[in-house]
């Protein structure tokens, strides 16, 4: 039998084969991430940039712009997940259990964070501006926590991106004051967009 024959191989060749396996494993994960993640990061980075810039300079239009672009982004994300993914999953994936756990952690984080970022009662004269800024920062950090969780299971670059944008959001919330939205357009939207472009260029 062919399989029972001993194959002559030196320890150096065995080491080279193991290194090759590690390299291929990393490469395939990066290729998959580039195929799925990069276009979505570019899309959501652009949406954040446009929406936050509108919020800063044309606040009257901001609600409509946010609503429309987030709806478009959600539909495009779902469709690209269905049709563009290089991976097809049959039956229950082990990822499904992780997804359920991730949602639970995300809700717990959202509840705790709402408590910490509070109080939501704000003096009337500062109400709108501060509440809008607060809810903006809150929503962004929740999204970035989701990226961080995804990064733990998919690719570390998403985790670093989530942490970096969370820090940038908090810095903007605490120090950018009236320029918070333009800060978020540049740092938050920009970080998503640049990470997407980086993955697209170097991981394919």
């Amino acid at each position, binding site marked *: 039998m062919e399989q029972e024959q001993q*194959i002559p191989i030196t*320890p150096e060749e*065995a080491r080279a084969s193991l290194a*090759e*396996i590690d390299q*291929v494993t990393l490469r395939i994960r990066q290729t998959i991430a580039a195929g799925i993640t990069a276009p979505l990061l570019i899309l959501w980075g652009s949406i954040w940039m446009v929406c936050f810039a509108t919020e800063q300079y044309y606040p009257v239009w901001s609600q409509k712009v946010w609503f429309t672009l987030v709806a478009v982004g959600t539909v495009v994300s779902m469709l690209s997940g269905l049709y563009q993914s290089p*991976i*097809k999953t*049959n039956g229950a994936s082990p990822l499904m259990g992780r997804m359920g756990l991730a949602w639970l952690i995300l809700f717990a984080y959202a509840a705790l964070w709402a408590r910490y970022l509070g109080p939501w009662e704000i003096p009337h004269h500062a109400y709108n501006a501060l509440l809008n800024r607060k809810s903006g920062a809150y929503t962004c950090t929740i999204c970035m926590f989701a990226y961080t969780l995804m990064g733990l299971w998919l690719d570390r670059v998403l985790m670093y991106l989530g942490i970096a944008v969370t820090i940038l959001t908090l810095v903007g919330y605490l120090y950018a004051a009236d320029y918070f939205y333009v800060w978020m357009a540049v740092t938050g939207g920009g970080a998503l967009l640049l990470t997407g472009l980086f993955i697209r260029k170097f991981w394919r």
Partner: protein
Amino acid sequence: MNDLDPIINVPARLRIMAALTALNPSSQLDFRTLGKSLGLTDGNLGAHLQTLETAGYIKVEKSFVERKPRTHVAVTSKGRARFEAHVAALRAICRV
């Protein structure tokens, strides 16, 4: 005696098996993505996939997505077990 698998112990097939076992057991990878990420031509990849499929290490599934043919490849449980044994054998040789 080492437990190296002669079917897997070919550079291109080792890389194919490494790529497919990196996925979840229930996942299948698109043929084009596999070839592109391993730097293999369609013909070369197809030939190696046929050898692995004949051995029962992988399964190939053809389907249509938006009326375009797409081929997906997945490792079988037998293939995963043989690949893990192959990797263990390589590690054992390194320790010699």
